[in-house]
């Protein structure tokens, strides 16, 4: 069973914003709503690194856990989606989300997108696949077309990967092995409190 995940390779990300505009164009996301954005640390300093961030489609999603109207659901592929007809736009999910993924377009200005809006992993929402109504409420449903999210597919350096977790982990692993300098993935050191050595991690698990 495919389990959809994003991963952003900080060694590759050049903060070009290709993922951001790919998303904007594919879903006609209005000005001010950012389903995806770039985050840079040490800007202008040695060690400058960027990653592209959107909804991470958490396995145990905090947004889902806190939603007072239970408008979130997970697809078979592990994509976290929500029903905009049910959403009350309260913002509790935004409060709960560690990534600032939920967006709240100004009500009314953009038609049906008055409710919470976020990255759908290009999987649309609870409407019939690839219909006009699905597009207007949630954006394109690329998954139903057999395609992966536009942001990752168009990434300028193939830093941002999307797809079945196992598959993209394999792609990432090949890079790390080729670089021969350990994984620089975000949070690795925090997670393992080691020097980020892949072999050490392997022993542990």
């Amino acid at each position, binding site marked *: *069973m495919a389990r959809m*995940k994003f*991963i*952003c390779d900080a060694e590759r990300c050049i903060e070009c914003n290709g993922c951001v505009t790919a998303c904007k164009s594919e879903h006609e996301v209005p000005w001010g709503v950012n389903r995806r954005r770039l985050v840079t640390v040490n800007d202008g300093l040695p060690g400058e690194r960027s*990653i592209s961030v959107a909804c*991470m489609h*958490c*396995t*145990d999603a905090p947004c*889902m*856990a806190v*939603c007072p*109207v*239970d*408008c*979130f*659901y*997970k*697809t*078979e592929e592990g994509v976290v*989606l*929500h*029903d905009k*007809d049910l959403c009350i736009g309260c913002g509790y999910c935004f409060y709960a989300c*560690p990534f600032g993924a939920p967006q709240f377009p100004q009500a009314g200005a953009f038609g049906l997108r008055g409710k919470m809006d976020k990255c759908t992993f290009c*999987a649309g929402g609870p*409407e*019939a*696949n*690839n219909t006009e109504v699905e597009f207007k409420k949630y954006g394109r*449903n690329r*998954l*139903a*077309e*057999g395609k992966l999210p536009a942001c*990752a*597919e168009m*990434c300028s350096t*193939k830093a941002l990967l*999307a*797809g*079945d*977790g*196992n*598959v*993209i*982990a*394999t*792609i*990432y*692993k*090949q*890079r*790390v092995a080729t670089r021969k300098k350990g*994984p620089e*993935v975000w*949070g690795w050191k925090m997670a*393992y409190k080691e020097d980020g050595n892949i072999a050490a*991690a*392997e022993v542990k698990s």
Partner: protein
Amino acid sequence: MIRRTAFLAGASVLAVALTGCGEIDQKAKTDKIYAGKKDERAADGAAFGGDKKKWEAKLAERSVAQNEYARTETKK
């Protein structure tokens, strides 16, 4: 195991991912029940007509396009 851990390390859900080596439970650990409209499965649209195998194959093919090694290191 590495394959699975590597991609998850960036997220904050590590504990869940590390619970075992077999197929991991993907259900949210919440007893809440989705109250919204039922969605169609990805493979159920016009493009695949419910053929999940075909859909998965297409997605796998698409995934490879994200890996430039597949094109640079094989052909000569």
